[in-house]
């Protein structure tokens, strides 16, 4: 299929999109926590796949390559969003009119079981505060259901590094959630 895509075969591209769209969308959604942004990122990912499939040498699995592109695009999106927020804040300090920074409501992942929705929203809020690499490891493992081995392949690191990232992520989440529940009762 990838070989056909390298020859810009439309049918192969359609099959690849339909096979992997849920995986790409769900990964992006776990990181950016917004349905519209996740759709936008998923589209960007497939545009890049179509344009640069020739650079895929087959050293890793196709899915691993897709995960890497998705994570890079999602992190770029997050950085752009933070930059915009900072810029709007600085502009507001100088009294210049700028776009009102809207704090998004709690994110509800559509795949979470109904009776866990509220807890999951609090957890996603805490995940958003994690450092980038902890957030990626945690999202890939918990939201996408990848094993530590698969996470390490995607992140180009060792299994023990992923274990360490997960350990630190859980500790940070615990602290963050304790604080949240103490404040919100």
């Amino acid at each position, binding site marked *: 299929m990838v070989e056909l895509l390298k020859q810009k075969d439309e049918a192969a591209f359609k099959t690849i999109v339909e096979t992997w769209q849920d995986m790409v969308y*769900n990964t992006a959604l776990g990181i950016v926590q917004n349905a519209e942004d996740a759709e936008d990122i998923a589209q960007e990912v497939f545009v890049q796949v179509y344009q640069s499939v020739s650079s895929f040498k087959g050293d890793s699995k196709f899915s691993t390559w897709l995960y890497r592109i998705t994570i890079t695009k999602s992190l770029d999106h997050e950085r752009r969003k933070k930059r915009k927020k900072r810029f709007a804040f600085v502009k507001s300090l100088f009294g210049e009119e700028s776009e009102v920074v809207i704090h998004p409501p709690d994110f509800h992942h*559509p795949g979470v079981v109904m009776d866990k929705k509220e807890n999951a929203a609090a957890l996603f809020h805490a995940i958003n505060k994690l450092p980038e690499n902890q957030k990626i490891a945690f999202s890939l493992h918990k939201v996408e259901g990848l094993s530590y081995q698969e996470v390490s392949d995607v992140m180009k690191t060792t299994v023990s590094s992923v274990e360490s990232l997960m350990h630190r992520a859980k500790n940070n989440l615990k602290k963050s959630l304790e604080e949240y529940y*103490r404040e919100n009762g």
Partner: protein
Amino acid sequence: MKQRIDIEKRVGDTLGSLDGIRRAAPQPYFYTRLKARMSRENGWSGVARFMARPAFALAMICVVIFVNTWIVFKTDKEVMPSGNNAAANEFPAEYDLTVATLYNYETP
């Protein structure tokens, strides 16, 4: 003490709230929207994206520097041609600029 236990339990429940999560899917007709986007981007925005690449910008800077350097060297050669020194030497003689000091000028 009771409140602390309550918080620990809630934190534990929250950390386990993603267990059994199902994969989210995009809205239907994702491929149609993707193709529409790709055909939009094939036009001028594709050219703009190509021009916005750092490699393109760097190549353009190199071209500008090369053209400027070439023009400077070319102009230098035209202003100071090596074989035209005779005219330059005739100029001070014609206007009597060879007199070194005022004293020499007054006592011929």
